[in-house]
């Protein structure tokens, strides 16, 4: 790992805004955001139903009076029903990948694009990017916000871009080898693929000269970070964003890597219990809910991301004051409530990773035989962990048991099962069987 940057440069002084000043700025911007959102018929109606007068809205203290927005609300107003400005004021349209059929469009004014570039620049500078660097972008350029979003952020920093875009990995390896960029921008899984392809071509991926990786677009783990750093010889940074809010640039890690600093002067973040929709305490996982404070073309109020993560607000050695977002640990749709505690399958997966290094196949079964919920985690033995010694097998089970309790906060019975016995489905593996509500679909 490279040594820490002594200056811990910030792209924008606003990143170090004192918390009191930040709150005042948020309050003022929230009032403006609500007034702007009222131009959207969906919000005008929702605010009216809740008795909120956009002109007299009371700011942060009245945040919970604002309506929540879901992905379905956006879909219901396809294609551009959430526009708060005339079409003639638009500068660009992006779209989120719809897994089935239509994308969800997101529109930008020229000022939105300018704000966005600045936010991506913050994330990149926090992760070590400097004007003298060259950056290889292997995100797709198109409707997806990743390519253009990172591209304009790199230009804003003053660094140079190689817009390699996606696909043809051997060619990407050639570009990396010949142009020797300092940084790589893509999804973490694609970065691992690049390393693999480089090795397949007889090249050491760590010898490509990369120093930084700025990865996002999908959830990943600390284990994966370790792999990426080792294989590519880089410092790897996590960033977060979603197109419904703006795209990449919502949050990103600094070199202290204690979570991703949220650009709270542009996005108001709430962390809510997905079941009760009440705020959860800092440090506990909950659903991330964002209100855009400065978006013009498509403001969203209290947008439910369905992403689950915990937030820390203590001081960071880098001097940035923005709340620090932990890794995305799951989707609110996957949440289980077991004996009153919210549990995510990804937490169980993390516990298994800690014990075994790689996640084995597993299945969480929840039942309520009497009045109490009972949870069993069935874990397939991996060939590497199969031992002829009972002591080792029992110790493996005990360690899994212990880690699951440490990560989720509740006790779940661990059952080791024979390799290959848990059901495999072609798409996403089934991780949960909740007998309290019958078998879950898929």
């Amino acid at each position, binding site marked *: 790992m490279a040594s820490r940057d002594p200056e811990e440069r910030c792209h924008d002084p606003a990143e170090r805004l004192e918390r009191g000043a930040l709150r005042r700025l948020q309050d003022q911007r929230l009032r403006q955001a609500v007034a702007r959102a009222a131009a959207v018929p969906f919000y005008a109606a929702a605010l009216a139903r809740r008795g909120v007068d956009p002109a007299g809205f009371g700011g942060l203290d009245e945040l919970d009076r604002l309506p929540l927005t879901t992905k379905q609300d956006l879909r219901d107003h396809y294609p551009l029903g959430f526009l708060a400005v005339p079409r003639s004021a638009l500068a660009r349209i992006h779209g989120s990948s719809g897994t089935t059929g239509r994308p969800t469009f997101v529109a930008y004014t020229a000022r939105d694009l300018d704000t966005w570039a600045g936010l991506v620049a913050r994330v990149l500078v926090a992760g070590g990017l400097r004007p003298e660097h060259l950056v290889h972008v292997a995100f797709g350029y198109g409707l997806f916000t990743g390519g253009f979003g990172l591209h304009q952020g790199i230009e804003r920093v003053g660094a140079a871009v190689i817009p390699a875009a996606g696909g043809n990995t051997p060619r990407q390896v050639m570009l990396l080898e010949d142009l020797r960029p300092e940084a790589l921008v893509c999804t973490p899984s694609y970065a691992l693929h690049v390393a693999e392809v480089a090795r397949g071509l007889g090249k050491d991926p760590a010898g490509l000269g990369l120093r930084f990786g700025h990865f996002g677009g999908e959830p990943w783990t600390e284990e994966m970070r370790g792999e990426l750093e080792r294989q590519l010889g880089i410092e790897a940074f996590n960033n977060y964003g979603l197109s419904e809010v703006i795209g990449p640039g919502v949050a990103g890690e600094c070199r202290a890597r204690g979570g991703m600093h949220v650009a709270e002067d542009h996005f108001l973040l709430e962390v809510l219990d997905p079941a009760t929709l009440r705020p959860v305490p800092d440090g506990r996982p909950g659903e991330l809910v964002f209100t855009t404070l400065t978006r013009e073309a498509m403001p969203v109020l209290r947008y439910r991301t369905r992403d689950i993560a915990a937030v820390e607000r203590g001081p960071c050695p880098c001097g940035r004051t923005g709340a620090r977002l932990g890794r995305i640990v799951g989707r609110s749709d996957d949440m289980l409530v077991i004996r009153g505690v919210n549990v995510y399958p990804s937490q169980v997966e993390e516990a298994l990773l800690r014990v075994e290094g790689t996640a084995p196949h597993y299945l969480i079964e929840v039942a309520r035989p009497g009045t109490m919920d009972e949870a069993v985690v069935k874990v397939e033995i991996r060939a590497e962990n199969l031992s002829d010694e009972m002591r080792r097998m029992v110790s493996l089970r005990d360690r899994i048991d212990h880690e699951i309790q440490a990560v989720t906060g509740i006790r779940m019975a661990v059952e080791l099962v*024979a390799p290959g016995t848990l059901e495999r489905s072609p798409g996403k593996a089934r991780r949960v069987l909740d007998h309290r509500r019958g078998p879950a679909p898929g």
Partner: protein
Amino acid sequence: MMLRQLSLFLENRPGQLRAPCRALADAGIDILTLSLADTAQFGILRLIVRDWERARAVLQQAGMVVNVTEVVPVAIADRAGALAELLGHLEEAGLGVEYMYAFPVRSAAGQAALLFRFERPEEALQVLRLRGVQVLEPEGLLALRA
């Protein structure tokens, strides 16, 4: 010096033990000896066969995951006190036994054979040799059987 042993993970429910035995039977593979360790929830089946590579392939073909480890075959006199004496040597040297089980030999041989899984096999072998305990080659062991 070392004998290859196959281990299988078994869940504790009916039919689990039969499956590997059936697979080996269908391939005409004779189980020379076995040991089963169990807890309330799962068990580990350990098997000794003549051709461990073929047996492993057969079991894998049947969808089982097989672990191969080495055990130490030791011959002792077939008389009262012989095993206690052998274990005494190990205890004096501070060497732990993970587990052990018997290997059936012809009674006419005047010997008994045991398979040991030691905590530290290399050290154990040295100690046994120093104390004059007869550690068998796999071929020697199989010859004793029949």
